[in-house]
């Protein structure tokens, strides 16, 4: 359900190819002493391409894509109008997404959606409806080396393909729409080396919840996270869907950006999603070279740590704060009213596959309702194609359109007073999914699906050993 008024998604990248003369940034691109964040900001600095930017520097950068969604876009439009700005710097880099309360749940929301549609039509910018912005950006727009800013904290998800992607507020997005630029402070970087093997029934979401539990809700505030793999065997365990989950959820410890190395998994994903040609590794044009952007080997990190995947158990976080992380055993059998699988954090096809694996041939517990929400139209279509939707419906679960609805308590799965929900969504804050007295626990889609069947918080591992 994409209305693209003036540009196809691939065109904005082609424009970048034409614009940037790679020779100007080659020295920075090849510099081994820069972290990912330092390198991108140095390359995108509007003043000079010869200066190496370091943590703490404040730099004005060129922005490749600036997004707002239906709970932040109306305020951005209001600010732009109040400033009297009548034209956009580049409509092809201006993205409006109607995803949070889609389709409109009431008249007030409908009027704000209308405001966004009229703005998009007037300015010929990109308007997307019915896919969650972060997933749409991943599927159609993001590429390594881009600077992507969004009026949504989980914009950092696009770090999974090697983009510098960060959340900001509505009025600053309006400023980017007007000028194509914004100031950024160069962040310090934390390097996290991953090693070992995930145990059965343990997933990327468990890893990031584990990390947040260790460092706390502000443990990476203002920082860039760089995830690294100790060898190819580790790398293979991190599909693009898993990387997206981690980059997205890194917001919950305050990270400014959260990036993965650009490798063959990135290139395969971009190729399958029609953004680069098959033979891209030895290319000569600017886009191809930029695809291979990497942090320098001798970069200086604020902190370096290693996480052994084997040591991680299924994690459950909550209630009220994301850093209140427990191993599954501590909360086993806690009764639940709702199980929610979806959101930009865990609503991709890999997540729906795990949920289908567990729900297949089983019934959702009679005291529990189960809601499944895909992250995008593309994921929705794939779930139908693979037969997952039939599995959910037979199990007694509800399958909704792609939206942020339940995660933000606006529609399609809100909670009543004192209700308890286990959820694969992004946050468990007080009143996040509805009543102030309701409680939300966060977990992987596998843990949520197992809990839906058992009517209480359940260990998903048994569903993997027995099959």
């Amino acid at each position: 359900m994409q209305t693209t008024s003036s540009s196809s998604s691939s065109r904005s990248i082609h424009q970048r190819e034409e614009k940037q003369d790679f020779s100007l940034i080659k020295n920075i691109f090849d510099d081994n002493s820069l972290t990912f964040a330092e390198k991108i900001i140095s390359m995108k600095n509007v003043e000079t391409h010869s200066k190496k930017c370091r943590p703490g520097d404040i730099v004005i950068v060129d922005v490749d894509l600036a997004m707002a969604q239906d709970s932040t876009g109306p305020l951005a439009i209001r600010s732009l109008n109040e400033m009297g700005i009548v034209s956009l710097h580049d409509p092809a880099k201006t993205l409006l997404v109607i995803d949070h309360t889609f389709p409109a749940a009431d008249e007030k929301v409908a009027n704000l959606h209308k405001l966004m549609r009229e703005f998009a039509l007037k300015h010929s910018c990109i308007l997307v409806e019915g896919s969650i912005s972060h997933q749409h950006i991943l599927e159609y727009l993001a590429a390594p080396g881009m600077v992507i800013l969004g009026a949504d904290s989980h914009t950092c998800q696009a770090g999974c393909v090697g983009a510098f992607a960060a959340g900001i507020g509505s009025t600053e997005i309006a400023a980017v729409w007007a000028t194509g630029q914004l100031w950024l402070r160069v962040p310090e970087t934390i390097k996290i080396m991953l090693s070992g093997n995930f145990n059965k029934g343990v997933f990327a979401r468990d890893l990031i919840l584990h990390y947040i539990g260790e460092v706390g809700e502000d443990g990476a505030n203002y920082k860039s996270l760089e995830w690294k793999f100790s060898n190819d065997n580790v790398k293979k365990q991190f599909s693009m869907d898993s990387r997206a989950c981690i980059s997205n959820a890194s917001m919950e410890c305050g990270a400014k950006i959260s990036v993965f190395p650009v490798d063959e998994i990135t290139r395969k994903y971009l190729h399958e999603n029609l953004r680069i040609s098959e033979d891209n590794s030895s290319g000569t044009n600017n886009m191809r070279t930029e695809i291979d952007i990497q942090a320098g080997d001798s970069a200086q990190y604020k902190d370096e740590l290693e996480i052994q995947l084997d040591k991680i158990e299924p994690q459950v976080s909550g209630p009220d704060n994301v850093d209140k992380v427990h191993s599954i055993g501590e909360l086993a059998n806690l009764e639940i009213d709702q199980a929610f699988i979806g959101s930009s954090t865990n609503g991709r096809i890999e997540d729906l596959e795990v949920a289908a694996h567990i729900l297949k041939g089983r019934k959702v517990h009679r005291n529990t309702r189960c809601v499944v929400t895909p992250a995008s139209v593309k994921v929705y279509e794939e779930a139908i194609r693979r037969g997952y939707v039939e599995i959910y419906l037979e199990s007694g679960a509800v399958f909704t359109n792609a939206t942020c609805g339940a995660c933000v308590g606006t529609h399609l799965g809100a909670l009543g007073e004192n209700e308890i929900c286990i959820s694969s969504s992004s946050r468990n804050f007080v009143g996040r999914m509805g009543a102030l007295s309701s409680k939300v626990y966060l977990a992987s889609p596998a843990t949520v699906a197992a809990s839906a069947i058992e009517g209480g918080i359940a260990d998903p591992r048994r569903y993997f050993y027995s099959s």
Partner: protein
Amino acid sequence: MSQEEREQLQRQQSDGVTKGKAWLFGDNINTDIIIPFRFKSRTNDPYEMAKYAMYGYDPDFHKKITNGDVIVAGRNFGGGSSREQAPVALKYAGISAVIAQSFARIFYRNSFTIGLPALEISEIKGKVNQGDELSINISRFTVQNLRSGEIFQAHVVPKFMRDMLVEGGLVEYYKRHKQFPWRIHRRSLPIF
């Protein structure tokens, strides 16, 4: 708070000094507490947003605020969502400044953007009681507790951020200068 009262408070801030009594909060006051999604996503009117300021803490909080009151909080104030409606709701409910041991990144940026003074004072914990009268100097980025007399220096920010704040936020700044503040100060940026 009415528009007239808001403008009066803004004039005081432009002069550099405001006074107000303190409301104490703990760590990790996130943006869902400051204004829940279902309220902020259904209006584009800042005075309507103000009715839900700190709803997650106390749905009637906005009625208890006296114009110019100050929020004093612990670590990581404003974590979570990027919603600019969070500082907007506080500002239009009559809060004249937020002081915290530390701020979440996006809330901090948004506060300057919309003209709500955000003062990071790492040693503030235990130095202010509920209801203490505080005097805040926006030009100097200092806070004085008028009960104890103690003066605290907040984390200093680049000049363009302070200019934006003193002039009432990015929109007001742009209306006056027809330029964004980081553009005007671009030559002097590296010194900060």
